[in-house]
């Protein structure tokens, strides 16, 4: 995870039975599923990594900007979450944010690590797994269902 890219890579277990033509479709489906599932959890104000609710929004800020709703959904103008995407790299799937929005994503995922003012003050709202971490079991279980579609 860096200022220029916040991401994780998933080694997809691809059954031998899936032929070459189907493999790309399968990987695309898994990639889109991972992104959709992450967005789904984030929209509920829940971390797709820890399963815990994100730290609630500041009371005054929520009153001013969100009609009093303190659920943090990381979706102020939508640019950062719009940038969350996947790429197929060989037999692996890269999921993350690159480019202009990566710095915002880095800040949320690390609790503003390295920020001169906000580090240690602004909450960490992690939605991208760090090295050695994974998305929630519930999300990962869905990949098994997608695999079944291709081997049934």
């Amino acid at each position: 995870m860096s200022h220029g890219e916040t991401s994780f890579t998933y080694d997809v277990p691809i059954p031998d039975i899936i032929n070459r033509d189907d493999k790309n479709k399968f990987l695309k489906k898994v990639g889109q599923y991972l992104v959709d599932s992450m967005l789904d959890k984030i929209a509920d104000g829940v971390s797709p990594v820890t399963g815990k609710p994100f730290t609630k929004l500041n009371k005054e800020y929520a009153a001013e900007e969100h009609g009093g709703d303190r659920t943090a959904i990381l979706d102020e103008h939508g640019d950062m979450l719009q940038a969350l995407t996947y790429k197929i790299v060989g037999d692996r799937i890269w999921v993350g944010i690159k480019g202009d929005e990566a710095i915002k994503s880095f800040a949320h995922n690390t609790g503003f690590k390295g920020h001169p003012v906000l580090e240690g003050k602004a909450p960490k709202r992690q939605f991208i797994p760090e090295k050695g971490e994974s998305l929630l079991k519930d999300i990962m279980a869905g990949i098994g269902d997608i695999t079944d579609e291709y081997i049934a």
Partner: protein
Amino acid sequence: MSISLKIEKKFTKLGTDFIEQSKKKFYAEAAKQLPYVIASTIQKGISPVEGIGRFKQYSPSYVDQIEGRVKFFRKGSKTIAIRPDIETKQGKSIAEHSKITYKNGAIAPGKLIGAHSKLSFKGSLFAKGLGHGKLKSPVNMTVTGVMVGSIQGDVVSNGALISFNSPIAKYHNGQGRVDRHILPKGSETFSSLIMKKLRDLLREAFNN
């Protein structure tokens, strides 16, 4: 606009009664729960259709229209969108916004109201406040909530039918300029996120 669900897989090792009962259970639960699941996914800004993901954000020029910064005029056979706040060589008042000049015969979205001296005036695009739901993120097809709320599920003969009753719904499924699909059509399928929920319902129906 609608989609119907049917179980097509053959269960040769299971008893016929059990299969029929389980299918019925599944269709009943799908008709009951799927509309809620789809509506909630749409409201989170995610398409329930495979391969689309998060709904596309509105273009900056469309946001300009919503915020009332753009007005439409009819000039001869052309509909011209202008940005009164942008100063051009021609002057502030009739600055043409080239990116959103509509072709002859094209229908500019929004209400046709009023008249303005020499040019016929199309007015601001939205009645005050109405378009502002579209300025919120995520893009979730919810301005008044009528369209998303019009989703319903019915058990039909040997299946479940999920439909949007609002006539606006079809414009998001390919009849508008930007596709923000809210139900699969043709060869499309539900997203894996929705399919996961359907599989859970299927497991419940066949396990109980």
